[in-house]
């Protein structure tokens, strides 16, 4: 039992938290700008590398570097929107999807040119896990990741429900034209969507680095589970995306847990889980679990 919790459930929640942070941005961008942002994974990578640079140059811990990396990634996202997405805003959104596919490549190759392709760690050495009740072992990084995500989820809930900007975001996501008619400045809402999405993506990227290592494919590899999580939660429902991320993260770890000596799926097929969930959703419930919208 403790083995299940220590080696499957907790890593699953950790991974799920990381997916959740990324999926919030994917879901918001899909809801408000109405396109699947293929470069979102690479925004994560960007955040992770900015933090890596700060760790190298300033010698600070990655958690201290995090706010600066988030700000940096937000600026990158706003620039990308300005240069590559906004000029296509009046066209069918599929052109923006193509552009974002290209942006994913641009970001990644830029990182590869600047930092090379080797994997790096923020701080070398083995971290001893904390032990509770004699047998519950949690690495402190897992505690950091899970508790930060929890705090973000609570903050996001209040922001969307009670702040002016949060409500405006939900309104634009519901109906962009009506939002304009009601006098909402959609460009400001869009800018804020990028800032939130990018900050959370940077956070997720740094968490991947803390949990494993920083490498140039870090974010791209997470794109599929993040899409699946956003679909699971219902497009335009950031809180749903958080739940979706957790479900997918936990599912990915649990499928390799041996029940009666047999595991459902070999660990090398872990990343297939997200795809299978996505396909099942698209067939049976494309609007997601939580009453999200199906974009046409």
């Amino acid at each position, binding site marked *: 039992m403790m083995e299940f919790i220590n080696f499957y459930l907790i890593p699953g929640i950790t991974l799920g938290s990381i997916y959740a942070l990324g999926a919030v941005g994917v879901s918001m961008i899909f809801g408000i700008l109405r396109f*699947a942002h293929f470069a979102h994974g690479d925004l994560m990578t960007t955040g992770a590398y900015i933090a890596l640079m700060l760790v190298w140059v300033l010698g600070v811990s990655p958690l201290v570097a995090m706010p600066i990396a988030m700000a940096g990634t937000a600026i990158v996202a706003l620039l990308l929107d300005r240069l590559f997405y906004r000029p296509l805003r009046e066209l069918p959104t*599929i052109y923006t999807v*193509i552009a974002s596919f290209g942006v994913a490549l641009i970001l990644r190759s830029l990182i*590869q*040119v600047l930092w090379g392709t080797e994997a790096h760690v923020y701080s070398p050495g083995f971290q001893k896990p904390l032990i509770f009740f004699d047998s519950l072992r949690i690495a402190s990084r897992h505690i950091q990741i899970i508790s930060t995500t929890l705090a973000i989820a609570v903050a996001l809930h209040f922001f969307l429900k009670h702040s002016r900007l949060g409500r405006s975001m939900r309104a634009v996501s519901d109906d962009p034209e009506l939002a304009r008619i009601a006098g909402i400045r959609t460009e400001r809402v869009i800018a804020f969507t990028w800032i939130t999405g990018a900050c959370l993506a940077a956070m997720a990227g740094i968490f991947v680095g803390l949990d494993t290592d920083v490498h140039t494919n870090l974010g791209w590899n997470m794109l599929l589970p993040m*899409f699946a999580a956003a679909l699971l939660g219902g497009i335009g429902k950031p809180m749903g995306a958080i739940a979706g991320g957790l479900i997918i993260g936990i599912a990915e770890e649990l499928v390799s847990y041996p029940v009666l000596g047999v595991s459902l799926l070999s660990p090398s097929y872990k*990343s297939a889980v997200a795809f299978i969930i996505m396909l099942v959703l*698209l067939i049976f419930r*494309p609007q997601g679990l939580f009453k999200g919208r199906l974009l046409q």
Partner: protein
Amino acid sequence: MTADGLFFYFVAFMTMGGIYAILCLALNMQWGFGGLFNAGIAGFYAVGAYTGAILTSARSASHVGGFDLPIVVGLIVAGILSGLVGWAIARICVRLKADYLAMASIGIAEIIRLIVVNEEWLTNGSLGIAGIPRPLEKLFNGREAELVFVVFVWILVAVTYLVAQRLRVSPWGRVMRAIRDNDVAAASIGKDIQRFQTETFIVGAVFMGIAGALSAHYFKFFSPDATEPLLVTFLTWVMLIAGGSGNNRGAIAGALIIWAIWSLTEMLTNQLPTEWATRSAYIRMLLIGLFLQFVLQRFRSGLVPEKPPELRPR
């Protein structure tokens, strides 16, 4: 370089250029006529490449097959299998906004990659499959064989072109191109359109599989590292957008021009000082990524803009 060397450089260029032309025509069927976004071209390409490789290579102890079958059989089966994958994914996704298909196709490419890497009994894992034959190998060898192969590739380009032209002038092809740029209208037309879209997606997938099999024959060896999956997908997209989506001749021209630019950037980055040389591949990717953005914003209709086919009286 001697004139002879230059000529065979050109032959090699035309061979890969031709394979990309097939990919680009196939993508044009899916996107240009069907309005379907496929972000997993590499997946269909890999299905074709491995099918061709396993069926036509000599018997091997390290993986299933090879079956030593004729190349034509390999090509056909490669097309069929790739088409089946396309059918499955299209059935699920055509009724949804194009973005959903984009996400699902990225997924299918990822699953295929996982299978290729993990199922060693089938694909020999990362070691790859060797001894893949080329057509008429026994009759010609050396440089003659290169010439035979380039002709073989371009015969298939012609076949792909003819199929694509038929789709283009079909009644549904006309309707689709009219509404491709308006997904709201597409959603309102309904089931028949979805059937046509599914068909274009399948036919496109078939030819992507064939292109994959062709490159396996050309490389004579295929492994997960033989191609960078994202590069295949991405280059094909750049080629189609630059060439002019919806236009088959544009698709071929786009494939050749972009393949030429891509090959040229290799020469340029080879001039870089050695400390940069290792990163040259990434600089090239960066440049082609920027090039796509440029084309999307300034030359959206492509180098050879789309012209609606003339209505011919029946």
